[in-house]
């Protein structure tokens, strides 16, 4: 029974490692945000797995809190990129739609 939890945790850790690879070498900023989103979801699942592996069900509260922080972080990063255009313009791309040009 323990080995199944270890295999499941290892699979989730492999998925998180691949997500970190995409977050490091992503060509645009949206790839990085997507990879961070997937990393956060897999971290929630990993914490839930560890809560049942160690028998301490209180860790599920931390898992729920991490899912909340993940969603808020993704939406905040998207707002920053869309409105502020801080990181999105560093590739010399001048294709901005007319409907988003009035944002400041």
């Amino acid at each position, binding site marked *: 029974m323990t080995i199944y939890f270890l295999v499941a945790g290892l699979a989730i850790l492999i*998925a998180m490692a691949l997500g970190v690879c*995409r977050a490091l070498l992503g*060509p*645009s900023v949206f790839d990085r945000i997507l*990879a961070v989103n997937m990393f956060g979801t*897999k971290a929630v699942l990993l914490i*839930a*797995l560890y809560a049942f592996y160690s028998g301490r*069900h209180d860790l599920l509260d931390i898992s729920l809190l991490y*899912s909340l922080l993940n969603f808020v972080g993704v939406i905040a990063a998207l707002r920053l990129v869309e409105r502020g255009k801080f990181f999105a313009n560093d590739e010399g791309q001048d294709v901005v739609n007319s409907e988003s040009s009035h944002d400041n």
Partner: protein
Amino acid sequence: MIIETISFVLIGIGCALGVIGAIGIITLPDTYARLHAVGVTDTLCTFLILFGLGLQADSYTAVAKLILIFMFLAFTSPASSYALANSAWRWGLRHNQKIHIQTIERETPSRSNSTQGADQ
């Protein structure tokens, strides 16, 4: 005993879906393709793993917490995927040139350098 077997089968399928989504986020050639790979598999992966864990729970408190986690992730994962795709499209990120669809080609016939954000 049979409940534990069903539980670990569900957790195994969920972990396989998670690894498939992670392979998709590495190998697919476009931002929207990667978003599709992750956004599709992520919700089902979450559901399978949390349902498999809920079969092993021994108290109603743990089941309630797992249901809360699943409901929050099931509502927010498609919402964040939609927000990401909408933000990328409104910012101006276009498809990869090798896998584009025909309407994009008819729409922008002359802007050949407008896909620099998508290809690598």
